[in-house]
């Protein structure tokens, strides 16, 4: 088996300030990697560099494309990269309104990616949207409602449906459970875990919530001041942290 994504030596600077520096890792098909760190640690900058939203100053992000194998998405032409982000990639934003079209119905939101890749049969698009609403546990009779009428948890599930409908292989998630009630978080986590397993998705999840990565991520990277200070198996990093910062992070979490 070969990696799905290979990041080598990713650095991004904002003037003289470090966004993230010298980050390298491999992600294999079906793997979920968590990136934790406090605000300003560079985890979101890194995610945006990986997902093509930001251009890193150095480094390569190789992705195993279906057509041509490993390609550096940093050097890729913009149309090709945008095509990738509509097909093989998905991005789940922390705030659902950043990832949804609030003026378009739930069904239209889910159908957009299908239509973007050429679906032109209304009945089939609607059937697929219906199926996906069901999969993310949104009542099918809400298909023509706009997301503004949905709760935060439903909006987040709708965003996930909208992203996964084209069967991507890699999902980027930025604080997917941030701002949700704890009970709603659990439901979302359960849903994500099931989808990751069933669709054999790879995922990169940025969060500051250690409980989220313990439940979702196979592997973990800990970031501080733009650098990866520790990486390994999620439970190993959390239970036997080697770096002082990770030890502090882990010991700061309230146990319940």
């Amino acid at each position, binding site marked *: 088996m070969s990696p799905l994504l290979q990041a080598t030596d990713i650095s991004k600077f904002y003037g003289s300030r470090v966004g993230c520096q010298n980050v390298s890792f491999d992600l294999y098909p079906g793997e979920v990697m968590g990136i934790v760190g406090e605000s300003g640690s560079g985890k979101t900058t890194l995610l945006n560099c990986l997902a093509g939203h930001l251009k890193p100053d150095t480094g390569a992000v190789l992705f195993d494309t279906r057509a041509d194998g490993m390609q550096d998405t940093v050097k890729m032409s913009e149309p090709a990269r945008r095509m990738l982000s509509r097909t093989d990639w998905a991005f789940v934003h922390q705030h659902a309104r950043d990832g949804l079209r609030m003026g378009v119905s739930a069904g239209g939101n889910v159908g957009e990616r299908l239509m973007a890749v050429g679906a032109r049969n209304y009945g089939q698009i609607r059937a697929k949207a219906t199926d996906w609403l069901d999969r993310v546990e949104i009542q099918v009779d809400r298909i023509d409602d706009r997301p503004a009428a949905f709760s935060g948890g439903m909006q987040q599930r709708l965003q996930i449906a909208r992203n996964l409908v084209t069967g991507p292989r890699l999902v980027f998630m930025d604080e997917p459970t941030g701002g949700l009630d704890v009970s709603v978080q659990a439901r979302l986590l359960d849903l994500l*875990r099931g989808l990751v397993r069933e669709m054999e998705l790879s995922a990169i999840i940025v969060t500051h919530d250690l409980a989220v990565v*313990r439940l979702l991520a196979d592997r973990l990277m800990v970031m501080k001041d733009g650098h990866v200070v520790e990486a390994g198996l999620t439970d190993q990093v959390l239970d*036997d942290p080697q770096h002082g910062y990770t030890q502090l992070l882990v010991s700061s979490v309230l146990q319940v």
Partner: protein
Amino acid sequence: MIRVQDVHKRFVLHNQAATEVAVMARASLTVEPGECVALTGASGSGKSTLMRMVYGNYLTDHGHIFVGDLDVATAAPREILQLRRAGLGYVSQFLRVVPRVPTREVVAEPLLALGVGKEDAFARAEGLLATLNIPKALWALSPTTFSGGEQQRVNIARGFAHHYPALLLDEPTASLDAANREVVLKLIEEAKEKGAAILGIFHDEAARNTVCDRIVDVTAFTPHLAA
């Protein structure tokens, strides 16, 4: 099947004046297929630490820990994940699951992760839950609200769902009543017959004597006690 060779472990507490705590030195043991070995020693002597190292949950500073052909002490995370999926099971004392997931699915999950079909995985899960006397009415509920004994049995069912060639058991019979204790001992015997190499911690001496072939006292590996 499980070979621990000259293993050392210390903790460095960076936020407490970089205090170094040596917890294991020169640990060696083997567990053959079909064999059950019990770790003994006083509380704090390193039984759980060694188990966690074998599972890859704790890093190993020095030495080798072979589970099958893989040296857990030096393996990459994804190799350990692969090992855990198919080759190495772990029944811990604590159940750690996503709230809201039904018990049936919690137990079936290791099989689903291996690609077993939903129907077969659920059938196996339900069989184990029935054997472990978890009332059928609870199968569709999340185990997070169950009693300690029930959670322990769900954990055991999950640990035995797949026939792992190597299995780690941390107090599998603690907080169980006599009937369920018998069931668990029988599951262990069955796993041995299927050739599983089992390493466990059993405070329950009678249970230990029933299922274990050998005992390894980890006190011998505890630096401040052995020295």
